[in-house]
């Protein structure tokens, strides 16, 4: 009986390996370097069907077709950028996992920085205001000691 969990684990792992192997087509790469390049490139491209997966991992039919397309372009000597452009021409910037920095993506790229700066400014202003108000506030609280607890968090 003790063997059973181990057997189950082994079987699960074996099947997991099988599933992972199926996601990768046996493409006739020239050498290992090309295979690495292919894996790296397809990992940067989005599958249009299951949009949270990249081309390398997706089992969707279209993803397989596009992998073959990328492979074919690679064989014909196209560079990574040319292959990306080829797909962008057909499927828009959406196929790129990393959106390019351009007019309509500025907010996407730098929005978080803006929010961070706004937060930092708020903190700076608050801290400065509190420091300025320390002495009177301390006096106040001593005067009102026990009378009022609801000083709260003063922004």
């Amino acid at each position, binding site marked *: 009986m003790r063997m059973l969990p181990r057997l189950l684990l082994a079987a699960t792992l074996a099947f997991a390996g099988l599933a992972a192997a199926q996601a990768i087509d046996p493409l006739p790469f020239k050498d290992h370097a090309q295979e690495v390049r292919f894996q790296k490139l397809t990992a940067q491209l989005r599958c249009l069907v299951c949009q949270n997966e990249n081309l390398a991992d997706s089992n969707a039919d*279209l993803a397989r*077709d596009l992998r073959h*397309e990328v492979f074919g372009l690679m064989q014909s000597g196209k560079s990574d950028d040319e292959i990306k452009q080829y797909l962008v*021409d*057909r*499927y828009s910037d959406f196929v790129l996992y990393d959106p390019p920095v351009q007019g309509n993506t500025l907010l996407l790229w730098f929005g978080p920085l803006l929010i961070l700066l706004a937060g930092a400014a708020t903190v700076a202003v608050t801290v400065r205001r509190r420091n300025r108000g320390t002495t009177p506030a301390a006096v106040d609280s001593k005067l009102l000691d026990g009378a009022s607890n609801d000083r*709260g968090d*003063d*922004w």
Partner: protein
Amino acid sequence: MSRLAPFFGFMLLVALFGFGIWWNTRHDQREVPSPLIGKPAPEFVLPLLDDPARTVSKASMLGKPYLVNVFASWCIACGEEHPVLMAEGRTLGIPVVGYDYKDAPEDAKAWLARHGNPYDMVIADREGRTAIDFGVYGAPESFLIDAKGVIRYKRIGPFTPEVIASELKPAIAALQKEAP
């Protein structure tokens, strides 16, 4: 005032959240806007489903606008769209070309025989190779191509009578107005 700041901050987040919900009910997040609209349709040469010896190409279709409707017998949403095309396809005033996508010819023929054939002709792309040039990522998708071979409008997902009335027919009318 400063005591109310957290409340206003909270209301701002609520408004943002509400806007997000409203936006997503009106937009399909999965929809990939085609970069091909306003650009020449890709070159294609595809065999007819009924007679694979004969082919249809972009060049052979030049001269009048037409609608390309990507469908497949395995595509469930195409089954939903089909009755709409059966009812309205002939009222569009332009040829409707069926684009059988990654489908076994016998399956497609059986499907059309069972549900009816709303198309003026059906071309078959069994491998889906040409569909990549068109930026097809699912079926159904439809392309309105003008007399010069330029893609003028694309519909991702099934046509409904509402979409035909509000989007497709005005687009066709605009094409016919600019024709001499």
